[in-house]
């Protein structure tokens, strides 16, 4: 035990000395700390943001239908008829097959696409609409106002806003425009009995794959999409986007490593004298090396803490204003939402590997060079 206590005490004294010596060169160390923390901040923001988006996507998709069936014509998504739904209801394992109606509408007034959707069930009176919060903001619309759209045939169709959706569900509902079925068909000229796609309910998740195969057999021109596949795709897309943002940053990483090398090897005359004196009064090479490693370690720790804390605040406090346009997608009506903090150990560990490891590796050789200098060489 005394052995351990002695080692700890020794390291504490070394740390003490290191901190004192670092504060003596405050400007230099602060500059390096700033650059270092900024780099950690950038990488951490990307990581936190993509994982938070994945988290949101998973939450959203939990509500999605088990299987979506689309009809394909010449490789393009086409309308599907109600008869198809009838056929699919006959497949064993399918509890329900509902036709869905949804589409996009470009509004030249705000230069943005709305998502028009007919909610399941008879929720909305013909002639009225329920709109998403971002859309309401963009058009300055409130409940009771009237919004008009030009339909497929050029006639103007007014909708009275019955309600604005709450802010909580913004990621999914920002640009939503919920209308009644008859209005939707009239606006886009979709005949009765035709739907955008079909949503299947499969009570037993183990049967999803088999049901999907049977759907392909029964309707060869259709494309069944499983909820799992959507989830997987979103997950892959967000991972891919975050890696795409990170890859150009790797150049920054290299530049930073070079900076660290430079800073560590450009010993000032003061520092050289300090090391010379330390060695002259009996410090061994190992001690000087330990002191210098403490210096790198402390700097890394501080930069890592500051960088991740700032990134956390940037992503979960401010909703990542620096990253949102790249990572979210190409929509114009951005949802204004707060992300739920979702961080796991993998990200922090990966971040450590991407930032601290290159820094420590880059400073090792210069640090050692400083540590092995002979006292007579520098004090002369």
């Amino acid at each position, binding site marked *: *035990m005394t*052995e*351990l206590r002695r080692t700890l005490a020794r390291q504490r004294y070394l740390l003490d000395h290191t901190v004192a010596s670092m504060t003596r060169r405050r400007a230099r160390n602060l500059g390096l700390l700033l650059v270092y923390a900024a780099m950690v901040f950038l990488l951490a923001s*990307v*990581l936190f943001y*993509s994982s938070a988006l994945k988290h949101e996507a998973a939450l959203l998709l939990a509500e999605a239908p088990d299987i979506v069936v689309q009809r394909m014509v010449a490789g393009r998504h086409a309308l599907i008829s109600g008869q198809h739904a009838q056929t699919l209801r006959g497949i064993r394992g399918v509890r329900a097959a509902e036709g869905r109606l949804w589409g996009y509408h470009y509004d030249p007034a705000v230069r943005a696409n709305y998502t028009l959707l007919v909610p399941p069930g008879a929720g909305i009176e013909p002639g009225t609409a329920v709109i998403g919060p971002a859309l309401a903001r963009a058009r300055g619309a409130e409940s009771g106002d009237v919004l008009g759209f030009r339909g497929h045939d050029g006639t103007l169709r007014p909708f009275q806003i019955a309600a604005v959706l709450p802010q909580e569900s913004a990621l999914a509902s920002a640009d939503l425009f919920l209308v009644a079925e008859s209005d939707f068909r009239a606006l886009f000229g979709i005949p009765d009995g035709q739907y955008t796609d079909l949503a299947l309910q499969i009570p037993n998740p183990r049967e999803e794959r088999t049901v999907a195969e049977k759907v392909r057999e029964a309707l060869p021109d259709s494309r069944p999409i499983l909820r*799992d*596949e959507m*989830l*997987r795709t979103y*997950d*892959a897309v967000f*991972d*891919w986007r*975050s*890696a*795409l943002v*990170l*890859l150009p940053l*790797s150049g920054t990483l290299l530049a930073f490593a070079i900076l660290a090398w430079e800073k560590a090897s450009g010993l000032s005359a003061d520092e050289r004298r300090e090391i010379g004196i330390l060695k002259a009064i009996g410090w061994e*090479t*190992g001690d000087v*090396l330990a002191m210098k*490693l403490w210096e790198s370690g402390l700097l890394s720790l501080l930069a890592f803490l500051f960088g991740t804390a700032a990134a956390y605040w940037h992503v979960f406090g401010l909703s990542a204003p620096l990253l949102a346009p790249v990572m979210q997608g190409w929509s114009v009506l951005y949802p204004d939402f707060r992300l739920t903090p979702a961080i*796991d*150990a*993998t*990200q922090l*560990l*990966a*971040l*450590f*590997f*991407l930032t601290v*490891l*290159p820094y*420590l*590796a880059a400073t*090792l*050789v210069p*640090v*050692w060079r400083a*540590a*092995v200098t002979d006292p007579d060489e520098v004090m002369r």
Partner: protein
Amino acid sequence: MMVQTPILALLLADLLGLLLLIPAGLFALQVLRHWDPSSGHARQLRLEKRTHLVAAILGLVFLAQLLALPLFVHAVDRMALQIVGAMCAVGTLNANPWGLPALLLRIGLFFLAAAWLLMHRMDRRAPDYPLIRAKYGLVLLILPLAVVTAGTQLAFFLQLDPDVITSCCGSLFSQDSESVAAHMAGLPALPTMIALYGTIGLALAAAGVYLRWRRGLLLFGTLAALSFPVAIAAIVAFLSLYVYEHPLHHCPFCLLQPEYGRIGYALYLPLFVATALGIGLAFTSAFAQREGLRAVLARAAPPLVVAAATGLALFAALTAWLSWQSNLILLGY
């Protein structure tokens, strides 16, 4: 290839590690050939100066190796979401033939890196570098392993495509498949239990003997190291069944999932620490007859032995408790 941040981090760590390890390996060759503390030759002085650098480099690389294993497992586990049919890390590892070898190599590297760090600690406390040749010999053993690990892992990640259909843990650990993992699943529960508690019991006894009479360190280290494969076999053969309360679910990775309270971390952490300490102590004690080392070992080894024995005891206790509180009955009355 899947482009993902943890993958990029692991590849970077391996690349940096190799960049640093290869010159360290060349230096190790020089040490093995020319190291002679009694000589005042310029070459010896140069070697002594440089050994500080190489030791610091190796310390960094091996510490990174220790962290790379959990990152690898966690990342692979997380990727299962993007691979059809994969439900946990096993599905991802099974997506191509490089997966399981990459994991096994990573585990091997983890233990050797830990052993090196422990030997280095011991060596530094003695004034005359008693372990320097052994230490650098070990580096020469680790270097090719690190190269192979990096290559295997790279091949695994390059060939890993989302959406490749893989057998999930259910089919990998089914009784009729012929792979090693399946073989573990085939081990009957009672003999595996006896082997597990027997090995750990013997190791704890050896620890007691060492702490009382300062003898048998090599034996303890070997037994602690041996506990690892036995413990993994036990997890696959019966412990996972008790935890999942399912007579056919043998997966050792699902233990890490939140559904099971992440109990795997509580099991694997003490086990890995104990095994790493055991391997390090076994390596070190193989050279214990050296004069300088004997004194160092007498001072430094007992707390490490206590730590390793505690880890093993914790693992055994947790295993016993999990088996006892489970609703699954594997052994008839």
